[in-house]
């Protein structure tokens, strides 16, 4: 296949503003991933191209990007799902709503700060038993979905409410809170619900479902947010 890769580029040391650059790649296999194509550019054409990536198979959460206008992980975006036929274009740009540092790299710190704000850790000050705390398979499955989160930010940076107001904690932080709110071993539900009931919490969610579509881990993000809203309503 012949693929034209259109990449949003910006080097703060050289460029006054971002621009689009195009790279035509020949002999692309349909099973290649956008990450492979970006590597081809970086390794064979222009070594200055900057992007984060690590595991290369969708588990570390480094390479969330906006690909053909939709947030996904570059290492899970397979060419044949983006292009029908022998020739086509793929557009790649940084995720939205976070400051671009260089090319496809954004400043993740505001995202991580929102994550930290919801107390994303087990709180239970009761003396632990000698062995494991017991938890039934049903209790365990109650918070299963949220444990899949890899903090890639695909959900939060696809959310129009977050684009409009970066102080909104965003879907990822709410998913992380949900994971503990519904864990039978945790004791900080009231505090987390109080944090999320504030102005920058769950009520900024307008149930747009972009987050659910964007999640590369298949987490039903919008539903989990709704469950947190219900828990707040039921306090």
């Amino acid at each position: 296949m012949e693929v034209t890769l259109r990449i949003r580029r910006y080097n703060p040391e050289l460029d006054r503003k971002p621009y689009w650059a195009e790279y035509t790649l020949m002999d692309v296999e349909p099973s290649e991933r956008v990450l492979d194509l970006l590597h081809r550019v970086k390794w064979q054409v222009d070594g200055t191209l900057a992007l984060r990536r690590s595991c290369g198979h969708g588990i570390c959460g480094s390479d969330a990007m906006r690909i053909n206008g939709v947030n996904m992980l570059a290492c899970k975006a397979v060419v044949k799902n983006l292009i029908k036929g022998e020739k086509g274009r793929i557009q790649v740009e940084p995720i939205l709503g976070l400051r671009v540092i260089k090319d496809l790299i954004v400043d993740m710190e505001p995202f991580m700060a929102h994550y930290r704000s919801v107390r994303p850790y087990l709180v239970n000050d009761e003396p632990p038993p000698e062995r494991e705390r017991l938890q039934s398979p049903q209790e365990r499955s109650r918070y299963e979905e949220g444990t899949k989160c890899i903090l890639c930010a695909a959900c939060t940076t696809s959310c129009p409410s977050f684009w409009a107001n970066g102080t909104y904690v965003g879907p990822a932080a709410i998913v992380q809170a949900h994971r503990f709110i519904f864990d039978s071993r945790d004791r900080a539900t009231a505090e987390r619900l109080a944090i999320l009931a504030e102005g920058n919490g769950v009520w900024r969610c307008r149930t747009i479902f972009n987050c659910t579509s964007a999640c590369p881990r298949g987490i039903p993000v919008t539903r989990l947010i709704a469950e947190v809203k219900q828990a707040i309503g039921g306090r």
Partner: protein
Amino acid sequence: MPIHRFDALIVGAGGAGLMAALYASRSVKTAVISKLYPTRSHTGAAQGGIGAALGNEEEDHWEWHAFDTVKGSDYLADQDAVELMCREAIDAVIELEHMGLPFDRTPDGKIAQRRFGGHTNNLTGKPVRRACHAADRTGHMILQTLYQQCIKNNVTFFDEFHVVDLILNNGRVAGVVAVEIGTGEVHVFHAKAVLFATGGWGKVWEITSNAFTLTGDGNAVLLRRGIPQEDLEFYQFHPTGIYRLGILITEGVRGEGGVLLNGLGERFMERYAPHIKDLASRDVVSRAIYLEIREGRGVNGKRYVHLDVTPETVNRYLAEAGEARRIDRAYIESKLPDILDFCRTYLGIDPASEPIPVQPTAHYAMGGIPTNVNAEVVIDEQGTVLPGLYAAGECACVSVHGANRLGTNSLVDLVVFGKRGGIAMAEYCQGADFVPLPPQPAAEAEAEIERLRRARGHWRVAQLRAEMQQLMFDHVGVFRTEDGLQQAIEGLRELKERYRTDLHVDDAGYVFNQDLLEAWELGGLLDIAEATALSALARRESRGAHSREDYPQRNDEEFLKHTLITRLPDGSHQIGYKPVVITKYQPKERVY
């Protein structure tokens, strides 16, 4: 140049680094330096489970775990360290649960356990349920849980800082030099103690399950500083990587009943390991796959075999084995969701209805920075400690894995020895003073960085790296010969020469200059590759993951000992050996 001062520095933020950080930060001023955001670390890619003889599903004992580990190691592991690890594994898993780790549960609410390669009931020889798991993303859960605890405990992180040198002054640790990736600025970290937890170096090989970022940075730094590396020739090839991509397919697939089939549809492991078949240890299974392929029994004449976990196949073999258990699609979906997702995404196949094409993939370093059980780095045959220097996790070699690691033991290793390292370095810091920084502590690293920034020769990093990976996969892979190893060593030296004199880097900037940092990483990979090939050449026997076709037998008389390879200032290498610690498991033939 910014100079930071901490009592304890931890380099790397995977499971070992975070565990060390949690313990060190309780009593001394601690910082973690990582080239990645911590949750990007490769501990997160571990799938199947963490081994501990909890006995939740059936009878089990840590002594059985210890014996299996020693046997799996082909008797090269230090048995005192193995016994300690397997005993402490139980408390370590319980501690993770108390931290909030979402393990799968048994019907009565305990931590669920599954079968894994090489883990057995020592009385019957049958596979035992020892791998504590959280679906097929146990490593992800460990990494997330430890990072959560670090947030809770306000651990200080320097994210996206790449450590490029260890600062020594008169043979004592004074700190590290690191590049802030976002700005290109060089920082000096002055410290009393440094613990390396930088993970593995799978990127030495062409087909690997490892992340792009697993480039052995800590090992390369120490090798260049004259600190020996232990047992580098023992590198594990995991039997089941996705064909051509190398992405890991957990041994848990076979633990749940999946079987390996060759091109004729034969369950060939019955011939290589009559007792536990597909659940033999990884070196045995990887060799079997290679031999099947070499003898023309790959699938469709290609270089792969099938891993079949479809309910029809699994249930047929369960019935044949006289087991009552049966599985269905829903069971596979609940126990192996990520595996199903990988196969759907990358292969376009559904493993619940068709087999997965797999080939061995470079996976894990048994060798590394020599340490004792307190994660203190030991620098010679006598076990002399370098004061203030520690290492834990995959980059270290205690040695608990010997010549071949059992599945689930990497996670045990990083939790147990990460914790022990954190405690030991905190104690050390409380009784030690800062060693003064030498004059211009970053000068050497800066000079090399500036050379790379201005390198405008012919050869791109990616080209040299690909040649190295091919060379290592062909000649320093599952099977090795003297000729092949010699070819690899000559090839690597020629690559190093091109790297030194004719390298090309495009990016002359400072902000996120990944072009330069990839060049830096390649320098380390080449050094590790050469030391690996030299260690492999010197070991004229076959043991565990080191299979010499010209010396097919294990030779305890000459080689029941650990290799220590040291790089001398002129770039040549010196190889020495140190004895294996044997407590109660006398070496015997290894049959599965």
